């Protein structure tokens, strides 16, 4: 691994360093809300997933949904964090129309998950370790809709009470790229662990972005916090914009104020929402309706045992045990679905060919990333919507590996599969695409080609070695690509050399 190089930004008056911390809000994947039995399903009609508890009717009480606790512990384990066997739910008090209780149940002093570390890969081939401060559980608020009526605001409480995990990083990131890589890594981890669907379009993951700048090596600067940024691209825009804004301010002799800001995706800029003076005093205190949350180490251990293989471990296995290139392994594990597809394909291929996985993995990875991903990208489809089934994909690769078709023919067959959805064996059969390895037949064709190209033969023998490829191409052309290229090479060489 390359050594991490700090990144500085050049200002008019010298170098600056940006310091970034993220608070990621990830919606817990669960059927029911954190403290009530109401459904968490996305996209329902307004106020149809609302119980007496999530609408804060008088006398209603919260009861912890245990599955949400398990999901938070799984996430903590996936991030390699310390799990706290005792944690406390607190009330965060503030008034807003879409906060029916007048407080949000959250965890303040004693969160369920403590410190951990995340390693991210950067584009220049280096890695960086980013600290996780904590993960705590909290309720989501409802949604205020300001565009339904000229003078009134409507409130939809479907989201009210849905469980969120707030994952707080340490201020360890030093560029938009690092922040993006960290966010993506967290997203990958929660999706592997099955604790959040990571669906950013539906708001399942969003981040509050804390940005400050300082002279290299100086004390931390004053930060701004930009709320509710819901894509990696926007997050990187926020960081670029805030960095520039703060450096410009400071270089012009101004001052950065601690404040909450909001992002405008249309202009790519941020603007002030409220200053420190206007900040809420949330008056946190332990929620007297809930007892402290306590569980045993055994409970944690059982969840740890049942966790699926996580991306770092999977990547290392692909590289070290299966011989997949580091780049390809990183691409495959980035999305759980891709990794799952690859692994199933490899299983099926090993079964079909009777060969060991490590002999097949490299080729399978190349095909998935090169051919399949290329085709998916063209049609804008995701791997779960792949037009080529696992079975057909494995069959196509198997045909290639057992020498039935050449790599070139395989690409043609794949195109036909995409167009027709037919299975590869059928296509090879119908189109007569089986590879020719019969030396007699190939010999005859080589002789024909040489006879037709006497001038090229003279040039070749005169030292133009590159013409070897021309002869190979002619042979392949005459066999419509079906000749086994290895056999062609073997037979052609002595004939040309004379």
């Amino acid at each position, binding site marked *: 691994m390359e050594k991490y190089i700090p990144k500085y930004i050049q200002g008019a008056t010298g170098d600056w360093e940006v310091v970034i911390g993220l608070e990621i809000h990830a919606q817990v994947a669960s059927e029911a809300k954190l403290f009530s039995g109401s459904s968490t399903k996305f996209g329902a009609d307004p106020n149809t997933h609302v119980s007496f508890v999530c609408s804060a009717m*008088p006398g209603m009480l919260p*009861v912890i949904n245990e599955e949400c606790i398990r999901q938070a512990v799984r996430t903590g384990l996936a991030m390699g964090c310390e799990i706290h066997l005792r944690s406390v739910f607190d009330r965060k008090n503030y008034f807003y129309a879409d906060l029916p209780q007048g407080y949000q149940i959250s965890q303040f002093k004693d969160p369920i998950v403590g410190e951990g570390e995340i390693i991210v890969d950067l584009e220049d081939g280096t890695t960086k370790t980013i600290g996780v401060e904590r993960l705590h559980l909290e309720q989501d608020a409802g949604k205020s809709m300001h565009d339904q009526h000229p003078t009134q*605001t409507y409130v939809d409480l479907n989201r009210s009470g849905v469980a969120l995990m707030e994952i707080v990083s340490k201020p360890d990131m030093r560029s938009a790229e690092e922040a993006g890589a960290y966010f993506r890594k967290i997203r990958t981890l929660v999706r592997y662990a099955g604790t959040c669907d990571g669906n950013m379009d539906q708001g399942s993951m969003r981040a509050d972005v804390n940005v400050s700048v300082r002279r290299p090596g100086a004390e931390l600067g004053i930060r701004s916090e930009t709320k509710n940024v819901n894509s990696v691209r926007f997050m990187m825009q926020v960081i670029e914009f805030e960095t520039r804004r703060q450096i410009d301010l400071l270089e012009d002799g101004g001052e950065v104020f601690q404040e909450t800001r909001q992002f405008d995706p249309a202009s790519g800029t941020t603007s002030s929402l409220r200053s420190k003076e206007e900040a809420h005093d949330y008056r946190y*205190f332990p929620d007297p309706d809930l*007892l402290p949350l306590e569980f045993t180490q055994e409970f944690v251990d059982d969840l740890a045992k049942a966790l699926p293989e996580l991306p770092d471990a999977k990547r290392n296995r692909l590289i070290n045990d299966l011989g997949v290139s580091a780049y390809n392994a990183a691409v495959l594990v980035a999305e759980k679905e891709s990794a799952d597809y690859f692994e199933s394909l490899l299983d099926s291929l090993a079964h079909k060919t009777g060969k060991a996985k490590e002999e097949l993995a490299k080729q399978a990875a190349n095909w998935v990333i090169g051919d399949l991903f290329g085709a998916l990208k063209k049609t804008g489809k995701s791997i779960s919507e792949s037009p080529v089934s696992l079975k057909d994909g494995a069959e196509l690769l198997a045909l290639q590996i057992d020498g039935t078709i050449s790599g070139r023919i395989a690409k043609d067959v794949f195109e036909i599969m995409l167009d027709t959805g037919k299975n590869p064996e059928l296509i090879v059969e119908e189109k007569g695409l089986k590879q020719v390895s019969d030396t007699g037949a190939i010999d005859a064709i080589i002789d024909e080609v040489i006879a037709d190209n006497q001038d090229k033969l003279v040039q070749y023998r005169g030292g133009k070695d590159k013409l070897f490829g021309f002869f190979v191409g002619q042979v392949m052309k005459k066999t419509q690509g079906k000749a086994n290229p290895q056999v062609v090479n073997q037979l052609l060489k002595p004939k040309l050399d004379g």
Partner: protein
Amino acid sequence: MTDLTKLTLAEARDGLAKGDFTSRELTQQHLAAMEKGRELNSFIVETTDIALDMADKADEMIKAGRGTGMTGIPIAVKDLFCTRDIHSCAASHILDGFKPKYESTVTANLWQDGAVMLGKTNMDEFAMGSSNETSYYGPVNNPWRATKQDGRLSENNYVPGGSSGGSVAAVAGHLALAATGSDTGGSIRQPAAFTGLVGLKPTYGRCSRWGMIAFASSLDQAGPITKTVRDAAIMMESMASYDDKDSTSVNRNVPNYEHALTGDIRGMKIGIPKEYRMDGMPQEIEKLWQQGIEWMKAAGAEIIDISLPHTKYALPTYYIVAPAEASSNLARYDGVKYGLRVEGNGLSGMYKNTRAAGFGDEVKRRILIGTYVLSAGYYDAYYLKAQKIRTLIAQDFAKAYEKVDVILTPTAPSPAFAMGEKSNDPIAMYLNDIFTVPASLAGLPAISVPAGLSADALPLGLQLIGRAFDEETMLRAAHVLEHAADYTAQPKIWWGEK
């Protein structure tokens, strides 16, 4: 026909079982008494039709042999309990017109057992008060009035105590056979003492708080207000249950409390805490306490002097913890979802107008105190310190219960006082709770038993505090105390005579 309103709950139960009268007859007599007793202002809502309907159903239950201790018993329900489709407003203007679509667990238990609802009783707004003068529906008049030197009844109205003032007035005035109350710092026990009734606050967690409009969640407990200890035992058994909808509810079997009333307390160790001997305590209270000690000794109990050293901090601790929780619990009354809404300029204008108009002065005072003690910079000095003292107070009791079985104290430092006498002096009002608050903070069961009359012939009560979840021993002692006191006084009827 005989006056059925003068019966105790136990006598009515036995009469119903024997077929001496029906629940309809019993209920009708109480409804008539309610009508005559409207001057007491003990009911906010009279549910006449529902009462008769429930009485008929109870008569069927009894006929079918499915009667329980509460079947056919007409009771009054404090307005703090949510009752389905019936006015449930905690005597606050801010909940104007609120009719819940759900039934509190405690009342559901009572209806399940066949109890009959006469109506919803008046109370201090959100249970905040010790005189029932803070209700939006006006003060409740104590059926008791002082007897002047010349032997004539005072023309002044006396307070019934609070916050369950409507409930005690209804029972003491024989408008209901029993009533539900709720006790946060003494709201069952002090009004029971002021009206010559038995008031039982069970162990925290014994009754479900689900569907009880919250005042201070870590202290609120429902309990019965009755004419006798036996009645309290019968009603307690029906009200108590484990409820998985309340996370602070405790999963323990509910015993047959009536079986605990053996009349035998020989060898029982009764603690007398020296710290309850306050400076300036009226002589008659001190005398009654001493009398109580003598009665218990005469019944064969062993009297043991004990010390509860942190007692003097209980009241200030209570008046930090309870308002802190209340300030948060009452945040949901914001004009957005239900109850009162007073339009204003934007959301915050609406909030301000609604809460200014909807809450009374005492509620506002406690919201302000609670907000203050939870504020940044004050939390540690007030709320956190109060929590620590609360732990010390609980430890005082735990230590005492190594040596004793129950603790005997006065219930209140004075008899009922005249209307308006203390309403402008919050501190004098808060001092009413001085003997009741420690058990509330420690979550212990406590009961007030009528034990005598003051110099001007107003009822006085003695309090017994039990071990957590040992209501049985406490009830046994209370039953003996009740018999020794031989309290038979009844208020002279001054209402409804015009």
